[in-house]
């Protein structure tokens, strides 16, 4: 059985005043059927750009190359019409902002049915019935009534459920969730995550979960890809990452999580500095200006992804296997 998604050396560059700057550099990862993979990193490190590049929804100023194999087909070379057949049918996507992701002037029912009508040869009546079922599945009370309401009449959590219903309407094989719970409050967050997990189990959907919240990762994911400044810096199973983090950036992220059991006066340890901007990438290792373990080599030469152990990789010179 082929992988659901195989991303091979994906590069995204943005045209800023006539010059192309790399926003995503040489990103490769894969997703197995039924697997949930987390894509983690601070804001501005290329997570969302990566996810939008997969489904070709980046603005025209972006230049994308590499390979994105969805069930063996390269999405980056498909005709526009073929790509549209995959969007909404094979791949569903939900976004960070449930408040603005639904069209304010159309009824919920019309917005869910639309996906079905675009991809399935069914009547409006059937689409309506299936939409009601979908709303039931995502845990919306009184689905028949909600079908007839407009987005502004629903709360943020309800709207995100509707977004999930839209994304899942055609039962896609891959669901891309770009910070799906960031805009929601904590209790709703937990409900939405629980819902996504149920859906993944019930339909066997693979999920690419983009988040900056390591708590969410621990709860949801099988494997994790950590991104920093447009590159993958560490990749491995959830256990690898939480119990044996290799890259100083991953360790930094873990240290920045508040721990409830910690002795009271222990302070959080933020990572000093900021993610470098597109136009000012540091030479050598991109994390070197913020790294507590920086060595001379790091400032000159960019490390590659070294295999730490089976399927656990880290982009740090400290993980280079020295021949003895």
């Amino acid at each position: 059985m082929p992988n659901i998604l195989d991303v091979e050396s994906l590069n995204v560059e943005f045209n800023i005043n006539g010059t192309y700057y790399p926003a995503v550099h040489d990103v490769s990862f894969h997703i197995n059927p039924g697997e949930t993979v987390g894509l983690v990193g601070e804001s501005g490190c290329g997570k969302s750009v990566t996810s939008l590049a997969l489904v070709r929804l980046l603005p025209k100023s972006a230049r994308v190359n590499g390979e994105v194999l969805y069930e063996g087909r390269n999405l980056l070379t498909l005709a526009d019409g073929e790509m549209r057949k995959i969007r909404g049918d094979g791949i569903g996507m939900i976004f960070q902002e449930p408040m603005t992701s639904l069209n304010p002037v159309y009824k919920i029912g019309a917005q869910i049915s639309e996906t079905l009508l675009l991809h399935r040869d069914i009547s409006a009546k059937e689409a309506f019935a299936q939409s009601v079922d979908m709303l039931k599945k995502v845990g919306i009370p009184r689905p028949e009534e909600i079908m007839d309401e407009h987005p502004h009449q629903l709360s943020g959590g309800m709207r995100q459920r509707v977004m999930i219903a839209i994304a899942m309407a055609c039962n896609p094989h891959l669901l891309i969730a770009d910070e799906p719970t960031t805009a929601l409050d904590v209790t709703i967050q937990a409900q939405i995550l629980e819902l996504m997990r149920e859906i993944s189990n019930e339909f066997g959907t693979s999920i690419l979960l983009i988040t900056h919240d390591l708590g969410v990762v621990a709860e949801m994911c099988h494997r994790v890809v950590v991104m920093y400044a447009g590159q993958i810096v560490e990749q491995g199973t959830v256990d690898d990452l939480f119990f044996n983090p290799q890259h100083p950036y991953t360790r930094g992220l873990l240290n920045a999580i508040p721990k409830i059991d910690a002795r009271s006066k222990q302070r959080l340890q933020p990572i000093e500095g900021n993610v470098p901007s597109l136009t000012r990438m540091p030479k050598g290792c991109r994390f070197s200006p913020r790294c507590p373990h920086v060595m001379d080599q790091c400032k000159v030469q960019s490390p590659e992804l070294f295999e730490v152990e089976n399927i656990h990789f880290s982009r740090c010179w400290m993980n280079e296997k020295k021949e003895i």
Partner: protein
Amino acid sequence: MLKYMVRRVLEAIPTLLGVTVISFIMIHIVPGSPVRILLGNHYTLERAAVLSKELGLNKPLWMQYFIWLGNLLRGNFGFSYVYNKPVAHLVLQALPHTLIIVVASILVAHLFAVFLGSVQAYYQDSMFDQVATVINYLFYSMPSFWLGVLLIIVFSIDLHWLPSGGIVSSQIANPGFGDWLRHLILPVCSLFMISVAGWARYMRSSMRESLLQDYVRTARMKGANEFRVVFVHALRNSILPLITLFGLSLPALLAGALFIEEIFNYPGMGLLYWNAVNSRDYPIIMGITVFLGIVTVLGNLVADILYGIVDPRIQYR
């Protein structure tokens, strides 16, 4: 909803009264008296005094106003000095002609502006967008009466394609629908081309903003094609500012029709108004002013109601 409409109409009454007071004062300030114009060569002081008394023009201004207002409230718009017919009758006779010009140009202009603005926004900063923007500016800065004269010179005098004025051809015994339609083309064009220019610019910026919204990305993610994204998802959101403009443009277009009807010798309300101003026919001037005031209020009310139909977030209280 009904309550809201009634309230809006009631709220408009003081505004309308203010408009009548100001117009009444202004037309009496303008030099030239109807008595002098009506008597023409037969003017003598005695005849003038008799006629003034007959028309009620010898009374103090405030009294004239209240007499006029009193008649208005009883549904009497007064008698035209020149035509010696009821004002209401004259206005109703001229109204259909004006309505056709104005409604046709509003409809054509809106459809065209919405389409042009949307396409411009979608292909923003392309060659097409830039050329369209320049042409838009050209028409936007053109007065409608000037454009009207230009169209007559080109299409009637030089090319002989279209008639230069009137409602139907006087030379033909039984002018049909086609003839009537041909007479409409130039006046409607002079009005609509200028409205299009302004509205297309609003539509362009509104559509540009909509296309950046998250729900547009959602629509693309569902697999909708670009036509659907622009004309189904973004359009209904972008059209809201144009609806407000629709309400505001109604009186402006009626005023524009005043010049256009004069140029094309088209016997609508504009021409009636124009002639009334020239002969100081006060009752007609006031009658049409009241009518325009009512149209303005109704135009805004219609715009508000349309707004609520297009945008479900609007509630009427």
